[in-house]
């Protein structure tokens, strides 16, 4: 038995089996249960060590051979598996009340298997192709039967697909740079092509146009899932490049470029948020700003900047989960997610509205909520580097908070003649309630996920040290 078999092949096989099942409740429970089991196995099962249970002795090998190449999951990757499958389980349990289980469970498992494979494949460059396959699987995940594909979906497909060739080609050029480190021209060319590849993959300004467009076209819960998984995997993939190529990691230009791009995304995401009138687009712009925050964290010269990148993982995921769960509730019960259609909806769906607003405020970095402590650390670190950058950080955050405040105003402002009428389904309300408690817990005690997140940098040989 090998670790890739457990955390890649098993979810892949289950995704095929899940395609045959129709009952949404069973699908969500089985899917969530399997993801939880994979999480527990990642905690309990020692990789690459002999395990004795009674008379039975076995060892979980680290590698799995596919067409002459290896998928490798080492003990250092176990923490990532815990966080990844733990968060994935939460998304799957939420798929029942949002009535997305029949798409999210089979396709979500296939996408998860591919993304974990992308982090495990050697040479790691091939991850670009596996991520592309995950993107292709996202198309049926996004598409609802009977609804024609919109321009946002087409643009998502095009932009994400174009990233792959750039990254593969850059990988080949980078190998050339390693062979002749003095060739400045080649280094510049390879870095530019690599940057373009990641600009497509991470939806860096101005290539993020598909995100708000897509947010108007597809189910918010599915969108939230993809907004969680794709940037997370792309950032970890990007960290792999930094870890692998010393000349990029030690380049003097890296930090200013990452910071400029990060600030650009934070400011554009924040400012555009302030002027949106569609709840789905607001989520898209918040995710754009979130990617910017991660890039800013990565740009910090401190040795613990990679730790900061990983600390964003749980608060962002929980915020996005609660946000998209709540948004899905409004999506199913209103004409559209445009401000005109959801005005005063808090009187009908108070818990859903509360969840949406608290998740939004959390991702915007509002005090006492999950993202605030990490955001504060980032802002503090940034201010110690440059007050100008800290100012732009503030502008972006203010934009996000303005968008959240406008949403609050619209959602609680009663429409004429409307009264209170509680129609929150208990299943969704329960999950949102648990999520909201989680947002507050992480805000008050940000050290809760530390035992798992603390080991994540060890995945990277050089960055981790």
């Amino acid at each position, binding site marked *: 038995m090998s670790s890739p078999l457990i955390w890649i092949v098993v979810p892949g096989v289950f995704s095929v089996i899940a395609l045959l099942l129709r009952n949404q409740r069973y699908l969500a429970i089985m899917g969530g249960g399997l993801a939880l089991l994979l999480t527990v196995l990642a905690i309990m099962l020692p990789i690459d060590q002999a395990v004795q249970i009674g008379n039975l002795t076995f060892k979980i090998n680290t590698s799995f051979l596919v067409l002459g190449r290896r998928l490798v999951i080492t003990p250092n990757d176990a923490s990532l598996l815990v966080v990844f499958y733990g968060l994935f389980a939460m998304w799957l349990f939420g798929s029942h009340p949002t009535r997305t289980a029949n798409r999210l469970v089979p396709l979500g498992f296939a996408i998860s298997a591919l993304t974990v494979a992308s982090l495990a494949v050697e040479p790691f460059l091939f991850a670009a192709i596996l991520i*592309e396959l995950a993107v292709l*699987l996202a198309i049926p995940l996004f598409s609802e039967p009977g609804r024609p*594909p919109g321009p946002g979906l087409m643009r998502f497909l*095009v932009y994400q697909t174009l990233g792959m060739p750039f990254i*593969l*080609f850059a990988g080949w050029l980078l190998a050339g740079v390693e062979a002749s480190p003095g060739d400045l021209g080649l280094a510049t060319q390879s870095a530019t092509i690599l940057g373009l590849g990641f600009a497509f993959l991470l939806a860096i300004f101005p290539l993020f146009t598909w995100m708000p467009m897509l947010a108007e076209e597809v189910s918010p819960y599915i969108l939230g899932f993809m907004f969680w998984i794709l940037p997370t995997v792309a950032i970890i993939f990007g960290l792999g490049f930094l870890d692998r190529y010393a000349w990029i990691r030690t380049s003097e230009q890296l930090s200013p470029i990452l910071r400029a791009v990060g600030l650009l995304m934070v400011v554009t995401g924040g400012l555009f948020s302030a002027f949106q009138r569609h709840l789905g687009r607001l989520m898209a712009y918040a995710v754009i700003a979130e990617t910017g925050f991660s890039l800013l964290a990565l740009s910090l010269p401190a040795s613990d900047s990679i730790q900061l990148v990983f600390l964003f993982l749980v608060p962002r995921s929980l915020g996005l989960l609660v946000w998209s769960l709540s948004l899905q509730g409004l999506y199913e019960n209103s004409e559209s997610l445009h401000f005109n259609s959801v005005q005063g909806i808090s009187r009908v769906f108070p818990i859903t509205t509360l969840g949406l607003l608290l998740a939004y405020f959390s991702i915007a970095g509002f005090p006492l909520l999950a993202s605030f402590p990490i955001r504060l650390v980032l802002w503090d670190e940034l201010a110690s580097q440059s007050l100008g950058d800290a100012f732009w950080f503030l502008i972006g955050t203010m934009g996000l908070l303005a968008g959240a405040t406008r949403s609050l105003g619209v959602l609680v402002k009663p429409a004429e003649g409307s009264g209170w009428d509680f129609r929150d389904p208990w299943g969704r309300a329960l999950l949102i309630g648990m999520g909201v408690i989680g947002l507050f817990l992480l805000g008050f005690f940000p050290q809760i996920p530390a035992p798992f997140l603390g080991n994540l940098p060890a995945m990277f040989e050089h960055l981790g040290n």
Partner: protein
Amino acid sequence: MTFLAWLAVVTLTVTASGLLLSQDWRISLSLLGVQYIGVLGLVALHWPLSMAAIKLITGWMAIAILGITRLGFTRSKDLFEEFWSQGRLFRLIAASFIVVIVIAVAPKVEAIVPGLGLAVISGSMVLMGIGLLQLGISFQPMRIILGLLTVLSGFEIVYAALESSLLVAALLSVVNLGLALTGAYLLSLIKPEVGI
């Protein structure tokens, strides 16, 4: 061999331009089929023929998937095709510009990536350029998929010269087939009376 390589480049230029101009999906898919023969010609310069044939077979399978899906539609001409007939001159001129740019730039690219051969670089750049043009002027699923397949074909020509891993060849084939299946799925979401 050089003659055959340049013949492949000419084939790719003609088929890619034809894809940009054609109104009929049958002609488009036929042109794509011929385009994959050109791709085979250039990939075979660096890979054994048996391995290079993967590109041709995968491409034709992708075409079969798209063709079978499109056959299910009742109308041969639709609103989109009528729209597409407009601006043909513009697209022809744009494609010509790309060919001119490739002629100018390909020797410089060859200097950066030596050992690939001018024909491989030219053929690849033509496909990528015209494919990107196709992607830039349409939101229709069929056109988008044809554009993406064209761009990927261009990339695969160059990448085959750089990387001969069996896993990469297999994964890129899966990506091509995945794109075709995605296109077929997207087409199936559109009501036949509305058009592709």
